[in-house]
């Protein structure tokens, strides 16, 4: 056996307290940092070796409380109950001690060990707040460490203190274990099969429990009267659960029962008939509180908790905080101004798209030149044949056509992450709430929608911050209409080919069209399949903060990695498959005898004959492609897409785009390159698209972009929808969007024709 110990540490705290920054500092893991309440919806995990320990860190969702009302809060508390972390680092926004400690109290009630991480300490010092951390530590019975997450200061200290606490906690292990051994053994036997892991886990949780029985953290007091009620009820809970700690600390469960927490009630009282003792005790307790205080227990408990926190804050805070929002208020005078707010919002969005497009063209040209050079070089050294065709046309042709958009993608995410980290996103939600309300959604849905411009998958996951399932589903359904970054290569390719200097504006227009259609779709769905009012909207507006280079860089690097991984994975495979389907089967009989004719022209050796040979070779290549599997598939799709102004290659590329939207471009790259000779004069994809014979019209290009904007989400998003909303909505999304895409593109193309475009 090795003597390394595995430990689990979870980070909990309010949204925007800097949890993710601390998490990054602790693990060095690449993880998104954002300045908006609730961006971290999934738990994120990172690892760190320290001394003899292998530590696993988990970044829990940011919450203000631990009720069952919001999914985030449920995720956080279920993790604490079910996964039994050895320790919780409670990240505190030291500039807002009162509200942060309100959550701390609930963590303590749950019966877990905590360390208080006083983050944002720089703001405390700047604002002249004075906090007596020693006293705070004594009052809460928890170590206190000061940190500045954005500058990675105090992280080592935090790590050292965490490990020390866990170590000390375990020095009394033997004593604790003998105390509880008998009971533990009995329980593990009941667990079948009693795996070693299960046993260890059970013992650890028992152990945790006993540590708390020693009262490391003094229990939160709600005043003598209420404390008595809680005590008797928690004894009843303990009794009724037969001492099993599977659902959590009995005192915490008792408090939750008094608060009327439906989920805990279901857990502790599965059937009122069987749990008579607890049911009656609970009813009595609730009645008792109601008659003595004239308030419902939930209110009394919340008040009590706040009272307790207020007492602590009074004792430790010597200098009351100055208003740290002053600076933010100044900015907001402009940013959320009655008249200027929206123009500023639009200007910021416009600026981001222009930068993405204009700045991106330079590195794009370099990469493009590199790809063409590579193809030429390979063609000259590799013996001609299927293998070289596969590598040059299939692999490099496919990947090359997509990789040139890497700079655009990275720039787009640069913009998004600056918006998130600075705190502007929350303001955008603030000014958009009324409009979102009109859609039957609220401002909070606006953030996932904005994130949808980056990628639909995290956007859909971030809908977990929405409390109402109906709001969530509606938001999930319209997120794919926000044009994600994977669709950008398609727009850049087609606008570059057809719209010249107006390209930036056309792309901007496409995004706006996506938003408008989302608006209409949302209204329609709210009226029909997802009836009902949206839930209230209460959200914190965090102070503006300067985004750190580190967090923005991590974010951009993460995106680059994801993009490159896509290149090496799904796009590589799709390109190869597509190439093979387009290369085989080989035709043996052609409509005319190309070989003989070419020979004859070759014999002539004139300029005219050179041209003829090229024409003949192209005609043969077309015949080959038509004969191939892809060509036949194209034949099937063509009648469906030709009313929209697309050719069959575009039709096929749309099908392959289901894998990932960038594949639309890489497929076109492969389809147009099969059978082509490669040298420095090879035509670029842009040239081929504009070709008067094989290419398409400007209007067709626009209709195609609309189609790509609207049609079925890619596989990854589909999977996310299935996971978050279920099969039904997944199928709905696929069918609805594809139909929508066809109809709108049809209207655009045919309508445009009528107007003589």
């Amino acid at each position, binding site marked *: 056996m090795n003597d390394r110990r595995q430990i689990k540490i979870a980070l909990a705290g309010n949204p925007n307290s800097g949890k993710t920054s601390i998490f990054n500092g602790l693990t060095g893991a690449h993880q998104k940092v954002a300045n908006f309440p609730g961006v971290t919806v999934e738990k994120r995990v990172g690892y760190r070796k320290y001394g003899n320990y292998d530590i696993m860190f988990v970044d829990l969702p940011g919450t203000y409380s631990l009720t069952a009302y919001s999914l985030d809060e449920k995720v956080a508390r279920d993790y604490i109950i079910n996964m039994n972390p050895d320790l919780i680092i409670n990240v505190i926004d030291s500039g807002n001690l009162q509200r942060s400690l309100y959550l701390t109290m609930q963590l303590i009630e749950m019966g877990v060990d905590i360390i208080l991480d006083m983050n944002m300490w720089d703001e405390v010092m700047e604002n002249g707040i004075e906090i007596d951390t020693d006293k705070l530590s004594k009052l809460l019975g928890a170590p206190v460490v000061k940190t500045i997450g954005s500058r990675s200061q105090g992280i080592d200290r935090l790590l050292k203190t965490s490990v020390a606490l866990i170590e000390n906690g375990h020095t009394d292990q033997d004593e604790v274990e003998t105390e509880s051994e008998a009971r533990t053994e009995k329980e593990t036997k009941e667990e079948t099969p009693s795996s070693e892991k299960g046993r260890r886990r059970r013992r650890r949780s028992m152990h945790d429990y006993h540590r708390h029985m020693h009262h490391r953290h003094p229990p939160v007091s709600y005043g003598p009267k209420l404390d008595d009620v809680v005590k008797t009820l928690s004894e009843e809970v303990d009794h009724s659960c037969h001492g099993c700690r599977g659902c959590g600390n009995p005192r915490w469960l008792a408090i939750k029962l008094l608060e009327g927490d439906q989920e805990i009630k279901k857990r502790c009282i599965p059937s009122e008939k069987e749990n008579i003792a607890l049911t009656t005790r609970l009813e009595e307790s609730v009645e008792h509180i109601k008659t003595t205080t004239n308030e419902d227990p939930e209110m009394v408990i919340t008040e009590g908790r706040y009272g307790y926190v207020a007492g602590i804050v009074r004792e430790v805070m010597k200098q009351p905080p100055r208003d740290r929002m002053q600076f933010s208020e100044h900015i907001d005078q402009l940013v959320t101004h009655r008249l200027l707010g929206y123009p500023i919002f639009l200007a910021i969005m416009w600026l981001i798209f222009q930068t993405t497009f204009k700045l991106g063209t330079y590195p794009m040209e370099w990469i493009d030149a590199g790809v063409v050079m590579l193809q030429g070089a390979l063609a000259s050294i590799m013996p001609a044949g299927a293998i070289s065709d596969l590598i040059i046309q299939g692999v490099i042709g496919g990947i090359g056509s997509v990789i040139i958009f890497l700079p655009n993608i990275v720039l787009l995410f640069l913009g998004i992450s600056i918006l998130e980290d600075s705190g502007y996103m929350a303001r955008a939600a603030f000014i958009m709430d*009324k409009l979102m309300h009109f859609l039957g959604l609220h401002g909070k849905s606006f953030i996932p929608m904005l994130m949808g411009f980056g990628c639909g998958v995290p956007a859909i996951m971030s809908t977990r911050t929405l409390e109402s399932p109906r709001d969530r589903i509606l938001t999930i359904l319209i997120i794919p209409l926000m044009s994600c970054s994977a669709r950008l290569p398609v727009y850049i390719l087609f606008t570059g080919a057809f719209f010249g200097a107006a390209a930036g504006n056309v792309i901007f227009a496409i995004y706006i069209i996506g938003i408008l259609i989302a608006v209409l779709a949302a209204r329609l769905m709210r009226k029909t399949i997802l009836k009902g009012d949206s839930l209230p909207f209460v959200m914190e507006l965090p102070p503006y903060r300067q985004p750190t280079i580190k967090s923005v860089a991590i974010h951009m690097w993460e995106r680059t990695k994801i993009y490159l991984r896509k290149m090496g994975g799904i796009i590589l495979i799709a390109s190869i498959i597509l190439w093979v389907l387009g290369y085989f089967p080989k035709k043996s009989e052609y409509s005319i005898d190309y070989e003989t004719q070419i020979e004859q022209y070759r014999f002539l050796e004139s300029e005219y004959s050179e041209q003829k040979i090229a024409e003949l070779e192209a005609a043969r290549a077309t015949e080959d492609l038509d004969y191939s599997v892809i060509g036949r598939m194209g034949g099937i799709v063509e009648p469906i897409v030709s009313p929209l102004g697309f050719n069959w290659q575009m039709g096929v590329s749309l099908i392959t785009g289901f894998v990932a939207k960038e594949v639309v471009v890489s497929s076109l790259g492969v389809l147009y390159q099969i059978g082509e000779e490669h040298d420095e004069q090879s035509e670029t994809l842009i040239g081929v698209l504009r070709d008067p014979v094989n290419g398409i019209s400007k209007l067709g290009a626009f209709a195609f972009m609309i189609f790509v904007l609207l049609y079925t989400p890619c596989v990854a998003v589909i999977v996310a929808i299935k996971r978050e909303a279920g099969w039904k909505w997944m199928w709905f999304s696929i069918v609805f969007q594809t139909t929508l895409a066809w109809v709108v593109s049809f209207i655009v193309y045919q309508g445009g024709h009528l107007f003589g475009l």
Partner: protein
Amino acid sequence: MSLNDLKPGQSGKVISVAGQGAIRRRLLDLGIRSGETIKMIKAAPLKDPLEISLGNGHISIRRSEAALIEIKVVS
């Protein structure tokens, strides 16, 4: 009077929080409870939601929820 009636720059003391379930709980969890002082900062461009200041942070809240919060103006 309710929170809605505060003018920008005015402050009020919370007397009671009406409503029930999720919304009441959320208001309480964010620190909107009787005895607290709330300052009105401003309304969003389309008059809704409101931005209020509470403790040491700012919160955005819709008028429909602000109507649940009974306050008394303080100077």
